[in-house]
């Protein structure tokens, strides 16, 4: 599994596309926060964490779209399946390689809390480090959930573009479930249920520095379900 993990990660790190996607993610994330930094009026990264789901909605399907669809299109999946490595190991190796890549992208945004620290120094305000760490942890969980869903769609087709569009559209609907805009159209009961299904509402607690066990359970269940469905697809022998 480690060999496949390294091979997958090396593909992105030895490839300009990998760097372009990571750097663009970093640039957009930094820009979208910094452009309004003086409007927020607080030494918190919460506005930044609110932006991230929208960015991840595009960038995560973009990096994950080839993960299995390309293997199927080139028939290299047959090479992998003829090697002594289980289907679960194949999917997990690819998943963790992509998660590492996304984590590298998130690390590029660490400049934001550092800048914020220097901005608020001497003003009496301060950055609460545990809140920051838990906030990033929440983003990692959300990224992992988005990745598992994108890998599932990648396993369903030989066409990367279809995988990308299916993932992005599904993530878009999952994100907007938690918005006031959608809530205003729906009855309270439906609205509550849909809000619970939205990863954005589940990550809110993390952004505030609170590790909510229900949210943790939600993300782990989400990841396990979609990875399991992906493994089932790879195990198919039709």
């Amino acid at each position, binding site marked *: 599994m480690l060999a496949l993990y390294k091979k997958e990660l090396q*593909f992105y790190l030895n490839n300009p596309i990998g760097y372009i996607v990571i750097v663009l993610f970093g640039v957009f994330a930094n820009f979208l926060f910094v452009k309004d930094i003086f409007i927020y009026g607080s030494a918190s990264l919460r506005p930044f964490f609110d932006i991230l789901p929208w960015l991840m909605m595009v960038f995560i399907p973009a990096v994950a779209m080839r993960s299995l669809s390309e293997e199927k299109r080139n028939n290299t999946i047959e090479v992998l399946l003829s090697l002594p490595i289980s289907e679960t190991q194949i999917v997990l190796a690819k998943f963790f390689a992509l998660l590492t890549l996304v984590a590298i992208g998130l690390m590029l945004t660490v400049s934001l809390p550092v800048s914020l620290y220097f901005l608020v120094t001497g003003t009496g305000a301060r950055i609460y480090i545990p809140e920051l760490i838990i906030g990033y942890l929440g983003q990692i969980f959300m990224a992992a959930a988005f990745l598992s869903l994108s890998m599932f769609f990648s396993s369903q087709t030989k066409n990367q573009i279809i995988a990308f569009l299916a993932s992005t559209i599904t993530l878009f609907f999952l994100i907007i479930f938690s918005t006031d805009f959608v809530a205003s159209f729906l009855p309270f009961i439906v609205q509550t249920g849909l809000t619970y299904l939205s990863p954005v509402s589940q990550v809110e607690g993390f952004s505030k520095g609170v590790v909510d066990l229900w949210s943790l359970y939600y993300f782990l269940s989400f990841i396990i379900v979609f990875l399991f469905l992906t493994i089932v697809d790879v195990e198919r022998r039709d």
Partner: protein
Amino acid sequence: MTNALKNAKTFTSIMISLTSVSKWFGAQTAVDEIGFEAKKGEIIGFLGPNGAGKTTTMRLVLGLLRPTAGEIKVFNENPLNKRLAVLPQIGYLPENNPLYGEMKVLEYLSFIAKVKNLKNNDEIIELSEKLDISEVMEKKIEELSRGFKQRVGLAAALLGDPTLLILDEPTSGLDPIEQDKIKNLIKNIAKNKTVIFSTHILSEVEDIASRLIIIDQGSIVYDGKKPKGRGAVEKLFKKVVKKT
């Protein structure tokens, strides 16, 4: 040591056994109640026209496809249920030789060696010399000629010294010189191994195989010794295959 591994190393006769195996894709029958056994040391030429069911049969043996009916045993184990026990002893060269073009040859072979749990790169060096690919080890696979790609695929299949080799159209698309090279390679590496190779090039079977299985429209129409003499395989093929 797993049972499959023990069987592979010590099994005296039957390496593969197919009993009344069928495979349907929807309403289409790809393989229809076929059965054969492959013994240790045999080099079996799997012959048939395009679409006869050669690749499907090979995929069934490897556990890449689930049979619709029948039983398959590889080293006396079911390759679907015990694939992790069976696969370390099988070397496979798939049809059209799919490879990771963006990788360098050495990177690719090292990756395969690691997945096959090989401790070091000694075998890669040995195989690169044997298969004459030492000069391209630092080249990207996508930059190689078809002949070199085929040899890289063959090296990957041979890593780990498998006891069973399954080669699907190993000389497909190669020029006659490269075809001869690959044929000689197979002859040299086949010693002490069971080899099943599919082809639709009749002369290949005459040169390499010790036994011949002819498949046509999903059914085995001949299974026996290779007929002797130049052109004998072609005569037999024309006799047993309906559309030639």
